[in-house]
């Protein structure tokens, strides 16, 4: 090809940053090695060295090149035979340039994966076709969704070892889809590959005639990732005030999201002073319009005092300006995080002090269950409330990766202790004072609610006398796929036929109604639980026995529901296996013997004087 054209083409290529994750033996290194080799990014001298080293490290098959040696950079790691950090690789095709963040799949290295994922637009999850979806797959998928990656390629590797069996591939696909239902992974691409043999990596395999989709490289080349970028909200953290002489005063920074045009109305934060964009300056000349991620210098029409670390935004579209917010943190330090610890926080080009007000819960990355904890240890993920000494200007991470993210720095060791993703700003009650714990915060909120509760002329006692029972919530929970719904409906009917006030609410009814405005995923689960709790409080106040179902309720959720139901009680029935660790449910039902389930529940309701004995 003509070299001039080649260079012009290279200059104008798009860029895709992606993350690769997998377990040690998934063949991840082999896959990357093959991408690099087939796209001619491994040079002859590196290859010669590699062959020599493959022999040295005692690899079984000397003729076969061990690509993983090419990728493992550091001596200590090489001796251990594992990659223990994030390594960046580069390759390009005629259409795109790629930057790979290569991260290990080891249990203790959640932090590395979060690091690699933070700058990636796409992730490749490798699954060994023989093993299917394993614990690590779940963990990786969760971290990828937590870090806001919208595109995921699921490469089912080692297809050669399962005879390129289609059913095998379909089963893995189904299993993966099932467990990622509650994760926010918008675009999933499943590809059967063999990294070792090269099937469907770069070239289409003739072994998988049943697969009609794109190869791995074709997918990487064609995925549109710019549509996941935020061009709506203009955010411009000022890094440097450019003042070479008295005639020029500009604010230099990177447009982290959004678009800006000459003449746009600007607001400076935190001063909230306004002006208009007079010029968008770059060394290559002024621009009429600039967009993320361009680095520019803005000149305003009016003299406004803005320093490094402050922010320029559109006057009509302002981010949250707050001292207190809720966030997920990935803990990365040996020293554990405890409530009331203080840190430096680095966010959108400014550093200030931060305090952990509340450690609300820890997330088990394998089961996605929330658990109560007094501390977060290395590689654990938790939800916290943080307050800062100076306000930050931010958006929720789900809307804006750049202004929704931060790192915490240990003020003594200066180590980067955590990566954080902001959920939302906290105002009024949340922000005033430091609540010792999430329980304490919820308790005071419920106290306040009860204190202000406006009761009609019919009291709960009046209702209980007429109904011969008190209002009460019966929650059925357990793994999905058990016959909870059937039991719940029969229970409602049984109670009703006994002249008791009972009401069954299907989980789907909440989803498509009350919860219509929030997605049914991990991130919004807390809000869903809050709504369900408040709803239970209202319905039980009307004297009803409120029967409902919620899958996957764990210790953290149940504590919260109990508090929200106060002063009425919550009666918990588990069907089959539940997610409870410490919490003891009132009734355990075996999946196999549900015939007598309703009578069992009735019996216990009666024993607990919830319903009169004669109803049995």
């Amino acid at each position, binding site marked *: 090809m003509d070299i001039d054209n*080649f260079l012009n083409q290279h200059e104008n290529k798009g860029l895709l940053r992606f993350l690769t994750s997998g377990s040690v033996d998934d063949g991840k290194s082999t896959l990357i090695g093959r991408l690099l080799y087939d796209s001619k990014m491994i040079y002859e001298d590196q290859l010669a060295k590699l062959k020599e080293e493959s022999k040295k490290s005692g690899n079984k098959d000397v003729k076969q090149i061990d690509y993983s040696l090419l990728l493992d950079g550091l001596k200590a790691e090489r001796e251990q035979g594992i990659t223990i950090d994030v390594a960046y690789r*580069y390759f390009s095709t005629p259409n795109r340039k790629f930057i790979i963040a290569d991260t290990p799949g080891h249990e203790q290295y959640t932090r*590395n994966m979060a690091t690699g994922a933070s700058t990636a637009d796409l992730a490749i999850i490798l699954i060994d076709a023989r093993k299917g979806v394993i614990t690590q797959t779940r963990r990786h998928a969760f971290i990828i969704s937590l870090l806001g990656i919208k595109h995921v390629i699921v490469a089912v590797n080692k297809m050669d070892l399962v005879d390129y069996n289609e059913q095998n591939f379909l089963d893995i696909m189904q299993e993966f889809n099932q467990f990622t239902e509650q994760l926010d992974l918008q675009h999933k691409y499943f590809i059967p590959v063999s990294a070792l043999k090269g099937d469907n990596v770069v070239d289409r395999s003739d072994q998988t005639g049943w697969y009609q989709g794109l190869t791995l490289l074709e997918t990487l080349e064609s995925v549109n990732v*710019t549509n996941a970028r935020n061009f709506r909200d203009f955010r411009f953290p000022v890094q*440097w005030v450019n003042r070479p002489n008295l005639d020029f005063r500009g604010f230099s920074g990177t447009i982290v999201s959004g678009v800006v045009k000459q003449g746009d109305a600007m607001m400076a934060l935190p001063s909230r002073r306004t002006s208009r964009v007079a010029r968008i300056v770059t060394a290559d000349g002024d621009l009429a319009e600039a967009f993320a991620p*361009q*680095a520019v210098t803005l000149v305003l029409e009016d003299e406004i005092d803005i320093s490094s670390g402050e922010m320029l935004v559109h006057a009509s579209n302002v981010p949250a300006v707050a001292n207190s917010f809720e966030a997920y943190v990935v803990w990365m330090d040996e020293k554990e995080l405890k409530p009331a610890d203080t840190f430096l926080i680095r966010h959108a080009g400014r550093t200030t002090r931060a305090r952990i007000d509340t450690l609300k819960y820890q997330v088990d990355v394998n089961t996605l269950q929330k658990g109560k904890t007094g501390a977060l240890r290395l590689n654990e993920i938790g939800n916290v409330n943080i307050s800062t000494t100076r306000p930050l200007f931010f958006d929720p991470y789900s809307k804006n990766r750049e202004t929704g993210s931060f*790192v915490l720095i240990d003020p003594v060791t200066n180590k980067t202790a955590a*990566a954080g993703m902001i959920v939302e700003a906290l105002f009024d009650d949340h922000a005033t004072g430091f609540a010792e714990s999430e329980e304490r915060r919820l308790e005071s909120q419920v106290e306040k609610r009860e204190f202000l509760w406006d009761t009609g002329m019919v009291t709960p006692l009046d209702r209980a006398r007429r109904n011969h029972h008190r209002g009460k919530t019966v929650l059925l929970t357990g793994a999905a796929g058990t016959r909870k719904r059937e039991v719940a409906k029969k229970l409602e009917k049984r109670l009703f036929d006994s002249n008791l006030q009972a009401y069954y609410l299907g989980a789907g009814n909440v989803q498509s109604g009350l919860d219509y405005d929030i997605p049914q995923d991990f991130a919004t689960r807390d809000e869903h639980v809050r709504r369900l709790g408040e709803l239970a409080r209202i319905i039980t106040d009307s004297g009803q026995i409120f029967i409902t179902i919620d899958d996957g309720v764990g210790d953290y959720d149940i504590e919260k529901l109990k508090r929200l139901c106060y002063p009425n009680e919550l009666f918990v029935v588990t069907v089959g296996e539940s997610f409870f660790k410490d919490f003891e449910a009132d009734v355990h039902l075996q999946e196999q013997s549900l015939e007598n389930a309703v009578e069992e529940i009735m019996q216990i309701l009666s024993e607990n004087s919830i319903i009169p004995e004669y109803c049995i």
Partner: protein
Amino acid sequence: MTQYNLSQLRQLEAESIHILRDAVSQFENPVMLYSIGKDSSVMVRLAQKAFYPGRVPFNLLHINSTWKFREMIEFRDAFCAEQNLELLVHYNKEGFEAKVNPFDYGSRKYTDIMKTQALLQALNIGRYDCAFGGARRDEEKSRAKERIYSFRDQHHQWDPKNQRPELWGHYNGKINPGESVRCFPISNWTELDVWQYIRLEGIPIVPLYFAKERPVVQRDGQWIMVDDDRMRLNEGETPQNRMVRFRTLGCYPLTGAVESEADTIEKIVAEMMETRESERSTRVIDHDGDSSMEQKKREGYF
């Protein structure tokens, strides 16, 4: 497709400018290590763009091993004068007076004294808390994991186990007095990107990168240029004129030339795509042992 697409090269440029500005906002006394090579030339251009129309708000520092190619020094002085850049030069005086050279001391010891030690002296004298370097992650295996902000202790040492995770564009520049950070703004560029950018921006580079007839001798499979009369010839070695160019520039007795006809950037890139030898293969010090670059990094070398 959205209309807001930035080409990969412009994205890299924007990222580098972001890093340069970030470091200037976080550190009190940064300096840019200027090696005269093509990567340095690109880094200087990026700094000029980052602070335009202002001046680059830090000095350039060249560590002179005293064995650089003459053309490099000529280029350096002309380039800095023309671009109006503040240049500081440091060399290891003791080493120079003791006549430390690559022939008697061997490449390893010589590099330690005249490059690594010289660099550490200069950093101590200047009390810099941040030093920009033009290293790229695609150059060498151990660099693939290097951070953009690479933390160094009081002894300028790099500890692979004690590097800070880097997320999003939030770089942690917190250090105690005496400690420092090496900042690599072009970490994510590849060799091809560098050439492409030089071509696009018309950035001046040392003529040694272009093929020309030069006096060379064959030594250990490399063409070594006889740049001045300090070059010691082994028995049976006679300099011969050959069309050669250099893919990287360092100390002339330790930098191998490749035979080439490429006298334009386009031809260099064309050759690069064909030859399939990695850039650092012409560096003698890299072959000292499998982890030699990593070892040097631990000791404070770039």
